[in-house]
């Protein structure tokens, strides 16, 4: 047993720094009407499979304590909160707001400087109906969370599945090309997109997706594409996203905002808005979230949901 990937834990000063960050975030979220919950460490494997993005399932640790059905160790809070909510809330008449803080455990990616355990704090907003009704609230909450963390030079990014997803669905390429296309977009790989077009042919959808890679986060760069976005039926999503960006600009004037439509790792999971934040002191995102209206229907509840997570462990490392 080498202990590779095991968490060293947080020693005296480190623990107090984490608690200070968690208190700041939970205090902010509770003042916005989010009630703290303490999700369990274990959930049935079947529920984890229904509630997790596919890529995360491959990294989920499983246990068989009694030999009668497997359990999944908490690899992500959204999935376990969804499992709790589906069991403990028979009906939803109005939005339900919850927040949490703690550790998740998952197999680390081999080439990432991360261990088996990582620390997060986040919130989830459930609504009786799917749809974008809670998006403004989530964007405000994410921006306020960033402000509360006081991360100098941080940038806040907005994206939307509705801007890219319909183009991916309509592109007249064989189904097996889709995975390569999503990978190329996520890696902002112009060479990758070119290679795919060489193999499967150029089309209007491909051209627009390629142009999204050159936006540099600037909204005005997309405005020039509006007539073509109208032609493919996604202009309304762009206007919605631009509106959310303007809201952040108005209400959080010190925060730099970028619009990044293609920077999503789990396309099949998100169904609308996506949010992310980066800080100059941290190599990975410090906050991410979005809308995942497919989550609760997969657990037998017709509700919509959105949420965000702050990677509190990464903040301690910066």
């Amino acid at each position: 047993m080498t202990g590779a990937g095991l968490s060293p834990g947080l020693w005296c000063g480190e623990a107090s720094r984490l608690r200070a960050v968690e208190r700041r975030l939970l205090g902010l979220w509770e003042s916005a009407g989010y009630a703290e919950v303490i999700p369990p460490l274990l959930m049935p494997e079947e529920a984890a499979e229904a509630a997790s993005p596919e890529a995360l399932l491959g990294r989920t640790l499983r246990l068989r304590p009694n030999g009668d059905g497997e359990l999944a160790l908490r690899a992500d809070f959204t999935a376990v909160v969804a499992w709790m909510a589906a069991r403990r809330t028979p009906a939803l008449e109005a939005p339900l707001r919850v927040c949490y803080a703690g550790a998740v455990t998952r197999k680390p990616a081999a080439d990432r400087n991360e261990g088996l355990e990582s620390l997060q704090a986040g919130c989830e907003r459930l609504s009786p109906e799917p749809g974008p009704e809670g998006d403004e609230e989530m964007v405000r909450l994410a921006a306020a969370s960033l402000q509360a963390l006081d991360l100098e030079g941080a940038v806040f990014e907005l994206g939307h599945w509705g801007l890219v997803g319909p183009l991916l669905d309509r592109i007249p390429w064989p189904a097996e090309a889709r995975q390569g296309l999503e990978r190329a977009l996520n890696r902002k790989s112009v060479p990758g997109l070119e290679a795919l077009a060489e193999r499967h042919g150029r089309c209007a959808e491909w051209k627009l997706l390629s142009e999204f890679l050159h936006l540099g986060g600037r909204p005005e760069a997309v405005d020039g594409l509006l007539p073509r976005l109208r032609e493919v039926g996604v202009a309304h999503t762009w206007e919605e996203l631009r509106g959310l960006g303007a809201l952040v600009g108005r209400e959080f004037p010190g925060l730099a905002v970028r619009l990044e439509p293609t920077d999503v790792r789990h396309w099949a999971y998100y169904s609308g808005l996506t949010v992310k934040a980066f800080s100059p002191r941290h190599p990975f995102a410090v906050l991410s979230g979005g809308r995942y209206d497919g989550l609760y229907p997969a657990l037998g509840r017709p509700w919509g949901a959105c949420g965000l997570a702050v990677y509190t462990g990464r903040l301690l490392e910066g």
Partner: protein
Amino acid sequence: MHRIALTKGRLLEPALAWLEVKGFERPDLESRALSLPLGRGWEAVLLKGPDVPVFVQNGAADLGIVGGDILDEDAPDVYDLKALGFGACRLSLAAPEGWEPVAGSPIRVATKYPHLSERYLGALGHMVRAIRVSSSAELAPQLGLSEVIVDIVDSGRTLRENGLREVRVLCEVEAHLIAGRRSYRFLTERWWEG
């Protein structure tokens, strides 16, 4: 100080020439130091190819120059900013003279590229059993470790000298410029564009 990770070996010289065209100083390669000043607030660090994306992904280097074969095989969490037009070679299937696949039997492939071997040979209808090796794959068929190899081929001389022939080119490869997620957002001078 900003940092660019460069691949040691055959990509190093053309990478330094490309950086010189972009206005950087050519460092002294006689020195045994693994980090070399380039001027303009940048330094180069010299690494083995598979380590370049690891340094970039985890923020230890802002940018990197690495073969597209490594990006495709390891799928690191980095941005692939551009293909650089140098370091051209090919990823090929090579086998001893007279080798033919047997229908219905898996092919044992010695390779540094198990994922790419399965992807490309699988698409050609072959069942693949990839055996990961990190060097001298050319020896594997002679020593009975595998029937064939999948490896990077430049001139083909090493293959010939080890009794192998290039059966099929699986994909073309060249050097790519990569960036980490943080650096992509916070590097203000985008000197690599244009």
